[in-house]
């Protein structure tokens, strides 16, 4: 049934993604593909995998943006522009338009935890759900002809044969920068909800009216390199070389000379 669940439970499982700590390494992208090509539903195929025009279905992708403050200068590292790596996967929207447009009932939102899934045996591959999603979270698998999307690793998070630490989505488990957090955003006392409250987590494209469950944490304010240089005289404690002895003392002096 592609009508959205009514009076559903208050559980809203989802991700919180920290744009401050993401280093753009794409580890989550790869581990997502690795887990999901052998997990839920058909494999995630690639077309022309070893050729020049390789492309395929991925459920999680990292985009990279440049943000330029008003009047900010763009001069490489010294300018005010800043780079923000931006991982993006399905946001498991509360008002998921991808679900309601589906003509077959293949797309659905689970009442018990809010996860949005595709029943691949029902999908006709019309692609309308991908048109309805503003976030580019759905990609057609061209080999199987069915729509693929993030399952929130539904086959990991409830898997009792896994150790507790592994019962999280593959991307969360993999992230070396700890930029991805998983939990129940419907529970105001959960760790993820507290994190969102503390750091001012926000929705993507609120104007689209989808009420995404996943939240993003903004990058923390930073000092531009130019500003940091001006700090020189009163250098922070840990940058001072006073008191270095032996080899380190020699190194300090040698480096100062260069």
């Amino acid at each position, binding site marked *: 049934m*592609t009508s959205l669940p009514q009076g559903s439970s208050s559980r809203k499982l989802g991700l919180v993604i920290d744009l401050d700590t993401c280093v753009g390494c794409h580890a989550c992208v790869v581990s997502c593909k690795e887990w999901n090509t052998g997990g839920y539903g058909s494999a995630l195929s690639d077309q022309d995998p070893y050729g020049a025009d390789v*492309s395929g279905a991925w459920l999680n992708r990292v985009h990279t943006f440049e943000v330029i403050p008003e009047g900010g200068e763009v001069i490489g590292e010294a300018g005010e522009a800043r780079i923000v790596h931006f991982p993006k996967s399905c946001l498991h929207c509360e008002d998921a338009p991808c679900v309601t447009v*589906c*003509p077959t009932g293949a797309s659905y939102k689970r009442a018990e935890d809010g996860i949005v899934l595709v029943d691949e045996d029902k999908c*006709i591959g019309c692609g309308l759900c991908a048109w309805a999603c*503003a976030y580019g979270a759905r990609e057609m698998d061209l080999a199987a002809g069915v729509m693929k999307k993030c399952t929130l690793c539904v086959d990991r998070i409830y898997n009792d044969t896994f150790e507790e630490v592994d019962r999280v989505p593959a991307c969360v488990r993999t992230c070396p920068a700890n930029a991805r957090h998983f939990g129940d955003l419907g529970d105001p006392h959960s760790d993820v909800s507290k994190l969102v409250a503390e750091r001012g987590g926000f929705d993507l494209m609120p104007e689209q009216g989808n009420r995404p469950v996943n939240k993003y944490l903004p990058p923390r304010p930073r000092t531009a390199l130019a500003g940091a240089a001006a700090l020189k005289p009163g250098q922070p404690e840990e940058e001072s070389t006073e008191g270095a002895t032996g080899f380190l003392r020699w190194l300090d002096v040698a480096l100062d000379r260069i």
Partner: protein
Amino acid sequence: MHPAYSVIFFTVVSGMGYGLAFFLGIGLLDPATMAAKAAYLSALGMIGAGLISSTFHLKNPHRAWRAFSQWRSSWLSREGVMAILTFIPLTTNAALCVLFDIQSLPLGIAGTVGAAITVYSTAMIYASLRTVDAWHTRLTPACYLAFAALGGTLWTLFFDLLSTGSNALQLSLLSGAAIAGALALKLQWRARVHLQVPNSTPETATGLGHIGAVRLLERPHVNDNYLTREMGFRIARKHAAKLFRLHLIMAYLLPIIMVTLVLVGLTFAGFSAWYAVSAGLSLVFHTIGMFVERWLFFAEARHAVMNYYGG
């Protein structure tokens, strides 16, 4: 948006078929004439060909029957259900007309209403998408209905002229009105597209607008993917403007000239079956014009996801 030929063919051809079915249903052609029989078969042919072509763009067409199940929420499903429901009175009346030279008015009305709802459902598939600013307006179904009505009157006029021309005068006046109506709606639709401020921007898409202006630095990977192929189609504005002029000439200007010729002939020289040539030409021009319109409808539309892909 990527202009898929199967969908363009489907929406244009079945739209005209439903338009013709609309006017057949209210009994504008005499069911005893050969022309009426040909008209019924043409309507069914256009609708059928369109529906078959629409399945070409499915990746798993053998499960297409499942698409009738979600009419409660999905306009695509509603369209499928309405298409099947409309077939029932339409084919019954077509059989009555071909075999017994009669048609039933209640069935005809049912077919007429069904045809209108089907076209409306098709349009709502597009109009209901919040992700495509250009489509997300009441004007989209208004245009689709106006185009179906226009195609329908031109076809009905053509078949009427092939037989006795008993309604030719009214039908050519109606065609003129339909041309004017469709033109007015389409111009309004397009003016809205050009005045529009995008609902979503790279700033809202990333939520980083509070820091400054956001610009894509790098896509997730260098090649195209399903999303950029499907949603990232772009057409140069100067070509779009040229194609739109072509649409105006083919879909409205040439047809109105042809219809006026018929009208002048009918008024000053009486009926002649030769006028059907003029009406036929108006259909040829109009159909080409509609293919151009539908191609642009997709090619010019920008999808919100392109905020993540720098397009």
